[in-house]
């Protein structure tokens, strides 16, 4: 090394090996939006617990909450991938409805209440979801239509076709094996639907954070041109990511059928926005390149806990919307200021993160 460091030179020039791992974990954790939002969730839970005591902090209450978010959690996995690529998928609610109609039609024609009937329906829902997702992905990657427009179109078309297929009337022919699965079965003490959602979340987290597929998802969202230049097949990857989102909507359709025992044609009009809000609250950047499944889980719990808490405390549930909206805007504000500061070269800029730096006891230079 023949680097001469003049006095007063920026630390840029020093050859410094990695700082100790523990401290860097702490500092990195303090910078993660999902950690901050987890803090917000803990505060909310603590506040409701203080106000309502064991009525709020009970197994049955949290069991109910987890059942309420099971479907959204499955959709949230796909949405997290999509948003990390700096895309958006508005169509998931409608694709869910379409897939559940397909599944219900198949199960109706197969007949019976056993698992074979349900399996045929599940297969149909997954195929239908993947097909919608792949179509979205193809139009986005190959035809270069913006994701917002493509999935807005798919939202309308999928819902329209679902209504055409059913005449707008919900189908109730869901086999008992599927509805019983929701009602009676508990796995490891967790009701069946949240358990399925948990499995999907874990698999999604592993794929996103540990595999090449996940790495490329970040790379595409972070610098699409750069990803192309290092030889990543960006078009194919985008199609796969949207197909994954579609598959999640297909699985979500099955869970919704099990939960409600009927297709929910009119009931999913805000599903897409609720899921997007949860993903974004959880620290996944709408500009791409950043995000985690863990954050999405936390982002899902915040609205659900608020709703359950308001009901128990006796506040009108309408306040939930007010609270969630505020959290959403605040989360994106923090995210943006972090980004702006990262561009300036500093890693710890925003109000929240400044507090975090103090907590992490940054050594003075």
């Amino acid at each position, binding site marked *: *090394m*023949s*680097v001469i*460091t*003049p006095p007063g*030179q*920026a*630390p*840029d*020039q*020093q*050859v*410094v090996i*990695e*700082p100790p791992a523990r401290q*860097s974990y702490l500092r*990195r954790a303090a910078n993660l939006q999902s950690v901050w939002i987890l803090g917000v969730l803990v505060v909310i839970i603590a506040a409701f617990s203080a106000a309502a005591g064991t009525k709020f902090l009970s197994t049955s209450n949290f069991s109910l909450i987890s059942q309420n978010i099971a479907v959204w959690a499955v959709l949230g996995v796909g949405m997290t991938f999509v948003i990390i690529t700096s895309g958006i998928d508005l169509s998931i609610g409608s694709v869910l409805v379409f897939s559940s109609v397909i599944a219900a039609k198949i199960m109706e024609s197969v007949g019976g209440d056993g698992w074979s009937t349900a399996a045929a329906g599940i297969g149909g829902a997954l195929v239908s979801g993947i097909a919608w997702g792949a179509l979205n992905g193809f139009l986005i990657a190959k035809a270069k239509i913006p994701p917002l427009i493509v999935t807005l179109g798919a939202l309308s078309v999928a819902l329209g076709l679902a209504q055409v297929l059913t005449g707008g009337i919900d189908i109730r022919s869901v086999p008992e094996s599927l509805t019983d699965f929701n009602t009676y079965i508990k796995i490891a003490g967790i009701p069946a639907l949240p358990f399925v959602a948990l499995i999907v979340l874990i698999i999604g987290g592993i*794929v996103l954070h*540990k*595999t*090449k*597929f996940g*790495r490329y998802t*970040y*790379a595409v*969202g*972070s*610098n699409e*041109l*750069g*990803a192309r*230049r*290092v*030889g*990543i097949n960006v078009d194919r990857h985008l199609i796969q990511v949207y197909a994954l989102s579609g598959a999640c909507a297909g699985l979500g359709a099955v869970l919704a059928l099990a939960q409600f025992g009927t297709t929910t044609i009119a009931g999913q009009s805000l599903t897409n926005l609720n899921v997007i809000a949860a993903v974004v609250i959880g620290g996944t950047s709408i500009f791409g*390149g*950043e995000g985690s499944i863990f954050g999405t889980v936390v982002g899902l719990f915040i609205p659900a806990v608020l709703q359950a808490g308001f009901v128990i405390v006796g506040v009108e549930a309408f306040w939930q919307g007010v609270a969630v909206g505020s959290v959403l805007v605040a989360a994106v504000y923090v995210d943006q200021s972090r980004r702006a500061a*990262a*561009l300036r*070269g*500093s*890693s710890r800029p925003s109000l929240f993160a400044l507090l975090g730096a103090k907590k992490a006891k940054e050594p003075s230079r």
Partner: protein
Amino acid sequence: MAPLLEARGLSRSFGHVRALDDASFDIEAGEVVALIGDNGAGKSTLVKALTGNLPVDSGELYFEGAPVIIHTPHQASEMGMEVVYQDLALAPHLNPVQNMFLGREIPRKGLLGSLGFMDEKQMRAKAEAGFAELGGTVRSFSAPVGAMSGGQRQQIAIVRAISWADKIVFLDEPTAALGVVQTKNVLDTIKRVRDKGIAVVLISHSMPHVLQVADRIQIMRLGTRVATMPAEGTTVEQLVGAMTGALDSQTVKRKEKAS
């Protein structure tokens, strides 16, 4: 011996604009060749044509003496050529190790590897070795690249390129956005790369830097190579003269002497 990479009579038009007009280029193994010329002289277009990023209308490429046609950047990579673009093409949210192995991840052994799991430990060890070899100024291998300084990002892009290139590295204006010390680091890096036996093609507007590190200088004007000069004994005035066309007769004479 045939040059490592040679281009003869490359031409390429965009509509009525002849971006490359019978342009030639050659580089030997382990040599630093600077490519200079005014804005729009065709330097970047030539590099694109040499690395499979741009099809040409006419002309031939020879790699180690054998005629080749390079269709894709991927093909150029496989032949041992890498390009460091002006915008560096790094993913700002990924860390240096992830950037270095992007698109070339080392899979885990066995079933997990075929499922797409990556051997993070091995990648990290290799990346650290690569940075150590070049005397890197990268401080953290776990922080995202976007939070690093321009000099560090440049270093990461260069280390990535030379880790994969075993024949030629193309550097498109590597010092344009850098301070004095960072520039010196990049120039030192270029010399170290050359000492490893890898040829370097350096595009730059900075004449002093070019004279400092290059073995030969090829000057382009209006889409063609107008002169080749040895760096030794050439002055900035001569380079500028050749770039602008003011010294045409003299450069031709020098070129004859040089060859």
